[in-house]
């Protein structure tokens, strides 16, 4: 198995500036609460271990439960499946509207978020000697990545499917050699059904690419529910790195890569502290944030090396 670290760096403001997050966050929360008016499904067990979830905090009144064995968080109350589908679509539409930072920073996000993902996929295909595979991307439509995937010429065919559509496995679906769940497990209302359906659609030996915001990472561990980037429906599920690896393994995947090549953990905590100086931090954390650039970069590099950044990426092979 391998893990990857990177020395590439970019500021938080280039991809998801905290000061421009408010409108998106408000929209996500209000739409989630609205969807819950259509009905409520209670989630009481961890999708990873099937053990009972322990209430562990809330974001704007939306309660999360903790999987005690893995430290993963899961939204405990969900709207009906159809309302969840609609919610993800609405949020995706908002992301493409001028009110969202995703739209205003589209170019910068393409260079710093999507192109590195494409490079990662390309290199992994080379390492695994997989040529011209068919790819399934699980993402709400329109996908920002699919045009880049098609343009790359790496794939013989490309399919995009929403989390909900992808969760419904059907025998007449064309099999794929590669599946991309880029933050899709974070926002699925039923990650088990999603992964099982994707697994069924993949050929044996096919490669699964997963990215996720993991709650075992530094900024999530320090800020907890105070992390303003932690908002449903995008973050209905907060796997820990341990939880995510267990989850994939349980569904018959062999792990080829488990990395946390995040570059923004310290900056995210710093940005929250600047916005709200009363955020509780330990003496050590304050010392770290006030240290010189070299120390902060060294610490971020340590987080990457030890699987402790909150941005996780994994590659697994269907056994």
């Amino acid at each position, binding site marked *: *198995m*391998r*893990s*990857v*670290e990177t020395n*590439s*760096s970019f500021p938080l403001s280039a991809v998801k500036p905290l000061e421009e997050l408010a409108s998106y966050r408000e929209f996500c929360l209000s739409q989630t609460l609205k969807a819950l008016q259509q009905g409520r499904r209670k989630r009481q067990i961890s999708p990873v271990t099937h053990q009972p979830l322990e209430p562990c905090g809330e974001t704007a009144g939306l309660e999360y439960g903790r999987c005690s064995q893995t430290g993963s968080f899961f939204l405990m109350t969900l709207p009906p499946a159809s309302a969840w589908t609609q919610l993800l679509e609405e949020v995706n539409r908002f992301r493409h509207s001028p009110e969202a930072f995703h739209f205003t920073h589209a170019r910068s996000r393409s260079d710093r978020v999507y192109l590195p993902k494409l490079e990662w996929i390309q*290199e992994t295909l080379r*390492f695994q*000697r997989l040529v011209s595979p068919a790819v399934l991307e699980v993402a709400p439509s329109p996908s920002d990545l699919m045009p880049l995937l098609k343009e790359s010429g790496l794939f013989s065919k490309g399919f995009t499917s929403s989390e909900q559509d992808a969760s419904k496995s059907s025998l007449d679906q064309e099999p794929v050699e590669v599946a991309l769940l880029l933050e899709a497990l974070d926002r699925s209302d039923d990650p088990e059904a999603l992964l099982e359906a994707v697994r069924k659609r993949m050929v044996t030996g096919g490669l699964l690419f997963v990215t996720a915001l993991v709650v075992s990472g530094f900024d999530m561990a320090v800020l907890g529910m105070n992390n303003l980037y932690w908002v449903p429906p995008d973050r209905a599920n907060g796997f820990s790195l341990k939880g995510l690896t267990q989850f994939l393994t349980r569904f018959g995947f062999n792990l080829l890569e488990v990395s946390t090549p995040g570059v923004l953990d310290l900056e995210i905590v710093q940005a929250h502290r600047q916005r709200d100086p009363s955020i509780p931090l330990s003496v050590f954390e304050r010392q770290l944030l006030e240290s010189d650039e070299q120390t902060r970069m060294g610490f971020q590099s340590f987080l990457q090396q030890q699987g402790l950044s909150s941005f996780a990426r994994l590659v697994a092979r269907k056994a």
Partner: protein
Amino acid sequence: MNILLFGYGYMGKIRHAVLRRHPAVRRVTIVDPFIDPKMLDLDGAVLPPCAPVPWEEHDAAFICTPNNVTADLCAQSLRRLRRVFCEKPPGRNWEEFCQIDEAARSVPDHVLAFGFNHRLHPSIQAALALLGEGGLGEVLYVKGTYGKSGGSQYRESWRNNREVSGGGILLDQGIHMLDLFQLFLGPLTVVEAVLTDSFWKCGVEDNAFVLLKGGRGQPAFLHSSATLWKHTFRIEIGCENGYLKASGFLSKTGSYGREQLVIGKRQFEDEAFSLGNPREEIIHFDRDESWDKEVHEFLAAVQEGRPPHHGSLEEARQVMKLVHDIYAMTPVTQ
């Protein structure tokens, strides 16, 4: 398959462990006059000393012996069993390699592989995938350092006794690096070499500095050493569009460091934050499957009756020719 395993030292134990796990292997018989069968929990798998070798009961042989008996045993095994896996080096010198070569020629349908497992290290395999059309373009140069600290028993080891080993650190570890150079650059020729025995005074080189060049003039530089007080394995591959640095590998003690591959992409001022400080990615590997892959590939070749994909006679010839040329052109100085 029933396997004869000659030699139960460091390498023999590694091969034995892999063979025992392989589903096609029924029995492994260890032939090593220097081990006491009663001292080891090997289920009667050790041939008693002085007992004749039961060639007819076996399908293939693994030669994991000290270098002074390698060539004889390899040649004999080829003639008796046709299927042989032989540890590096393939003999103590060029003449002994030729003895193996001659035996192989006399058995046309042989399956013969040599143990150059470094080719199958994950960092090396990943590096190979990135060269050429993998994105980094043609290789411009290769530079490798491979060395160990020696240790208090260094002078007593057969590896440093010329009679037994045939050479010093170059033939012991450096040969792996020469093999990797040829993997990346194709056949090489020796330009210059300096061999010294300045610390251990065993009568074999404890340091080898070798300059080589490829078919298109690409330079390669090797430092093989028994006086690197920190165990080191590092290979740098300079390419048209970037560079690769593979280092460390998983050993029992972890003394060579975590295996990793640094991938750097060439970036000038217009792309990078500052010139000469390009974006790098570091891949860490925590599993070394090279031993398994090497043995599995050999056994697959035996089962399918085809030449093995790794460690071929031709690759062994090329690397032994380099070693021969280096020793021929350069006396060991103190």
